């Protein structure tokens, strides 16, 4: 176990470095001189040359990568071209907002998916099963940015129940867990939750059906265990894999919320990324992608470790 733990953590290091390399290369696959990502287009030539030397952009790429990596490790993610502020000051606020949205959506999707998947797996072939499977397919097939628009039309425009945009009254950016703020969270979170709902339903249905087919369930039934007792056995067996799926889904939501955030003007990383792309603010683009991807790498690691710790059947050397 301990060896596996160490090996798994060590394995995450080259992955993290390669992810850094991909993010570093993003600026270099962008059309144009990467220096344009640092200085405004109308800067005088002497200044451009000066900055090129300062940033080491006149050096070969591998050395540039080393310099960049050194800065990032020390927490310097660069300066935004659009605002002139350090990238981290905007990014840190946006990350918290995205995390709030993604965790809420993952929770909704997780609860619904477990209930639907559990029911479908227990009553295979019945109407309940078909309904749950249908909902799951719909969840993974619906373009969620469109679903967001439909939600806005229904609940904001027609019924006027919930606000359509922003994360707080009057566009304020401070968050509090009161109705004033939470009502802004409901529509984007529900919209975003349909994807994990669909995927968790499918997964849990498969896991539950497989467990119910195993011999030990037959034995439990045979010795007269109550339905509730059997249910507990199924939950215990299904938990490790289900937790793994939902953990990865949270990561996908963190990175995939850009479309939903754009629809609802949710002030998270998605909106930040969207603005950065259209202002050609490459430092912000690069840093946001890097932080989100690192978050995903860390989450993958945690999910693996938790799954190994929870499930004694997994023997990883």
């Amino acid at each position: 176990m301990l060896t596996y733990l160490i090996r798994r953590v060590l394995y995450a290091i080259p992955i993290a470095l390669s992810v850094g390399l991909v993010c570093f290369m993003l600026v270099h696959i962008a059309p144009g001189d990467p220096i344009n990502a640092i200085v405004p287009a109308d800067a005088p030539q002497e200044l451009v040359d000066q900055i090129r030397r300062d940033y080491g952009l006149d050096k070969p790429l591998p050395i540039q990568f080393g310099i960049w990596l050194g800065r990032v490790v020390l927490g310097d993610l660069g300066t935004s071209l659009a605002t002139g502020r350090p990238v981290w000051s905007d990014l840190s606020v946006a990350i918290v907002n995205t995390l709030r949205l993604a965790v809420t959506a993952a929770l909704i999707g997780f609860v619904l998916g477990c209930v639907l998947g559990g029911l479908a797996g227990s009553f295979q072939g019945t109407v309940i099963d078909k309904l749950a499977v249908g909902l799951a397919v719909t969840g993974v097939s619906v373009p969620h940015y469109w679903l967001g628009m439909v939600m806005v039309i229904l609940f904001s425009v027609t019924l006027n129940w919930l606000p359509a945009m922003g994360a707080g009254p009057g566009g304020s950016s401070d968050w509090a867990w009161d109705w004033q703020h939470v009502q802004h969270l409901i529509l984007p979170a529900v919209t975003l939750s349909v994807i994990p709902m669909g995927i968790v339903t499918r997964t849990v249905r498969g896991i539950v059906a497989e467990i119910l087919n195993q011999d030990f369930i037959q034995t439990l039934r045979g010795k007269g265990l109550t339905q509730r007792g059997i249910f507990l056995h199924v939950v215990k067996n299904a938990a490790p894999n289900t937790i793994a799926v939902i953990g990865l889904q949270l990561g996908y939501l963190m990175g995939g919320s850009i479309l939903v955030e754009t629809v609802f003007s949710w002030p998270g990383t998605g909106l930040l990324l969207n603005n950065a792309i259209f202002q050609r603010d490459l430092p912000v683009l690069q840093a946001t992608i890097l932080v989100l991807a690192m978050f995903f790498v860390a989450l993958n690691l945690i999910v693996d470790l938790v799954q190994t710790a929870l499930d004694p059947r997994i023997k990883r050397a």
Partner: protein
Amino acid sequence: MADGAASAKIGAAKPAGTAAAAELAVQAREAALKSQGYWAGVWKRLRRDPVTIACAAILLAMLAAIVFAPLIAPHDPYQGSMLRRLRPVGTPNHPLGTDELGRDMLTRLIFGGRLSWFMGITPVFLAFVIGTGLGVLAGYAGGGVNMLIMRTTDVFYAFPSVLLAVAISGALGAGTVNAILSLTLVFIPPVIRVAESVTTGVRNLDFVDAARASGAGAFTIIRVHILGNVLGPIFVYATSLVSVSMILASGLSFLGLGVTPPEPEWGLMLNTLRTAIYVNPTVAMLPGLCIFATSICFNLLSDGLRQAMDVRA
């Protein structure tokens, strides 16, 4: 099959000798069924699956509509009129209304399907070809080659797919080709993983050893024995990606990263109609409905294919 079972039942009611004969008849019938081959079996199973058939029919109808768009579309997709902007569904001469520039919605939805389908399917097709090549190579060669290919794949797995697509097209800039390129890069790694695992499973089977023992070269073995056995499962897996690809491709256009105006494309149309949801919500929802319908049909079709082809991937 049903006939065979019936004759077996009749046979059981008759004296023992006839029963044995009936049993033989059943066996012969089953053997004949098997000799029809794998694809006949797949087709037989598919035919009994109404959902899959319905989805295939809808998709074929859509395909026909977008291929023959200039023949069936009632108006010009680019020609608008400021006088008839955002007309509701059911307007005479404009059955699905008009968009924010007064262009006929039905026409633009039919023409929009061309780019949406092209941008959704091309990345999966390219990823299928490239991913299969690299995956089979990794699985068959093993060792260092496998290590190199699979560890590179791991790196791309460290990005959530939407983020990777947005990152690459964001850096490259808006455009149809850039969007297709970025989505291809997103789908290659999962195809490689599936191709590698299926190939590794087939590589160690006896018939591959037998082929090698009888003097077949690596190229022949891969072409005849490996590809013949792995293409089916990889293909089924690739079909399951089409739905995601359609949603992501239109999503990139929705963000302004894919198709550029005034080209008709469902995601872009959804974006430009966003401001119209207060004026004419029904018309504003139509392009998304098209994406949804296509995506769910591809998903159900893929599920049906997987079951009919008996693939566990």
